[in-house]
């Protein structure tokens, strides 16, 4: 049953986050170094049962600590590594990175014995294709890309539009003004998928609904993912214009939406993680739901499968059916409409509803 599965996933996400927090707590000790607690702890886990595997996660620009996408990728991998007693390494990209830098980063990981290597973000597509050919014995997973065809590469892609469709349904059902909003961080196709699904979901419930969309910045200016001030003003603008529910797929700028909603007494929809838990306690009450993009499930599954040998090359679609995306009910604000929303979910899974992935 989709709903049960969703709840299960939510629970796993929460658990994973709790795990991170616990780990992080240890590293707050100023004498131990920074980045990856798991790495510094590595020497003590040399007697791990499966020493042939060392997990690596290569992030794109933002890196871990975003309380969303990248953290989720880490959580899944970390959880798997912890379960299997594996070492885990993290590396992060920079804005000026070229494909060659990314390739070299992957090579570096492969050379130092990492397997599997999880590349987070579509910008790794070319580099993964290149490096995977050089290291046929190493498994590569790439999040958000399904273009690499190689016997040792798994594309981990998500049907963000399907999850967004569901929160669009929630928004339309709960909006009292018949006007909802969408804030995208940066105008890239990935984020457009969120917008498209959201609009489709809302329109399905209420064809007359008014939907305002905006993007905070244009690529390659990625500040839209990191400008909570702008997110806040954009949300205020939408609320002032009559919207009462706004959905943000804007990374760190989403925090601004929650603040604006809290100040004005409106509602907000989170993204990627269950933001009811990741956002500041002061603002969580306005988060009616979050569109879950369970990157953690993907990275966990991938890591586990590599170790137990059941991994399949090719595109692994984490859609609604596979539990890759979904929506959260934490906080209880939408408990009364869960049945309705799940009905739409089933229609998507059964193919009755085809969710568009672009707005035009």
């Amino acid at each position: 049953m989709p709903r049960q599965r969703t709840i299960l996933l939510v629970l796993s996400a929460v658990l994973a986050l709790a795990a991170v927090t616990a780990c992080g707590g240890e590293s707050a000790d100023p004498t131990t170094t920074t980045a990856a607690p798991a790495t510094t702890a590595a020497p003590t886990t040399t007697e791990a049962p499966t020493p042939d595997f060392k997990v690596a996660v290569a992030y794109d620009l933002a890196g871990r600590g975003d309380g969303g996408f990248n953290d989720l990728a880490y959580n899944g991998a970390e959880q798997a590594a912890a379960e299997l007693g594996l070492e885990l390494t993290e590396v992060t990209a920079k804005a000026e990175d070229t494909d060659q830098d990314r390739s070299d980063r992957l090579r570096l990981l492969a050379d130092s014995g990492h397997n599997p290597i999880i590349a987070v973000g579509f910008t790794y597509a070319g580099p993964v294709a290149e490096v995977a050919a050089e290291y046929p014995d190493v498994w590569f997973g790439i999040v958000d890309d399904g273009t690499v065809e190689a016997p040792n590469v798994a594309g981990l892609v998500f049907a963000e539009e399907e999850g967004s469709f569901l929160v669009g349904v929630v928004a339309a059902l709960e909006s009292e003004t018949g006007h909802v909003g969408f804030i995208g961080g940066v105008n890239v196709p990935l984020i457009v998928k969120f917008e498209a699904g959201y609009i489709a979901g809302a329109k399905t419930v209420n064809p007359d609904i008014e939907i305002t969309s905006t993007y905070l910045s244009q690529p390659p200016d990625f500040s839209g993912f990191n400008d909570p001030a702008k997110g806040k003003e954009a949300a205020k603008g939408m609320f002032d214009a009559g919207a009462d529910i706004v959905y943000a797929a804007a990374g760190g700028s989403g925090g601004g939406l929650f603040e604006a909603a809290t100040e004005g007494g409106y509602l907000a929809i989170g993204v990627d993680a269950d933001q009811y838990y990741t956002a500041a306690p002061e603002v969580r009450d306005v988060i009616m739901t979050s569109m879950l993009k369970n990157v953690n499930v993907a990275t966990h599954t991938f890591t586990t499968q590599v170790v137990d040998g059941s991994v399949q090359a090719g595109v692994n679609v984490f859609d609604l059916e596979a539990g890759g995306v979904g929506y959260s009910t934490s906080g209880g604000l939408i408990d009364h409409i869960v049945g309705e929303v799940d009905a739409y979910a089933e229609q998507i899974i059964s193919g009755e509803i085809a969710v568009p992935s672009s707005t035009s």
Partner: protein
Amino acid sequence: MALLLLSAVADIANTPDLLSRGAVSASLRFAVPIVLAGLGGLWAERCGVINIGLEGMMIIGTWMGAWAGFQWSPWVGVLAAIAGGAVFGAFHALMTVSFGVDQAVSGIAINVAALGLGRFLSSIFFEGQPGGGISQSPHVGQIANVSVPGLAEVLDPIAELETPVISDLAEIAIGMTTGVSLLTLLAAVLVFLSWWVLFRTSFGLRLRACGENPAAADSLGVNPNRMRYAALTVSGALAGLGGAFLVTVASSIYREGQVAGRGFIGLATVIFGNWMPGRLTIGALLFGFTDALRTRQETTMTALLIVGAVVFAFLTVRAIRTRNRGATFAYAIAAVGLGWWFLGFGVVPSEFVGFAPHLTTLLVLSLAHQRIRPPQGIGVPYRRSEAN
């Protein structure tokens, strides 16, 4: 005049948000960090030092503000941000005044260092805190907002009359007096205070003299290098305060990259404002206003098409009068082009909306008739032995 134009345009283009209270208060919030950065630039340049490092000092301000803010209180955060900015301002002075490093170089280095430092320090202090990570801080409390009591109630009926201009004025008044952050008020005070200190006190006179002709100041017993230390410390403190605004008012979190070029925009407003605090603030408000409009409601940008068309039409007429044929031609094309765009498409592509504030600033600077008068000692290191 301008108000009349905007008011008319809001009606024609059917973009009521153009002069709404929300847009006004958002403009203020967007403008304040820029104003503070701009004041920072003003203090530095009035004393003869260019401060390209404003961006970096703002970054330090955001980090310090969040670091102290989440542990103790946002006001402690503000103080920490000011202190952090001031330290980097003084460091800029150390580099440029004592070591004779080129002013632009030191500024760029500070920007580079601040980026790295923010992330490095976050990895030590924020990672592992609830909600914190290498690129963001835990939640920071907000600085309180205040309103002029009763005013909104009085003005609301007027605003709802929807009489052009008068209602707009009421909206603007409400926007400027309701839910205003204490830090915004502080910024307003600082604009006035900067003017007062720079132009009405002996300290300010000495500071300006060091920016105009340090040798003259030195010959009268005013030590230019000491003044530059002071000016740059204030400059950094103001930029740091601008950073604090971002984490305690505009949002409630430190987030890597959140300064997003505001320091540079601040620097631009100094030149825009012809090195005067008041005009600088107008420049920042103009930028903040455009930024607020496009962030709140992209459709409002269509209204600016009309404004642009009208302004260019006006410039065309003026150019015809002064018989400047080239300018007439260029302005006329711009006016017709914008008008045609509005009538033909009625929308501005959202990709273009993003740079509307920048383009507006650029156009205003290029077209406004101006006589720029920068401080004459700007960018020149002062050494006594070379002054003779």
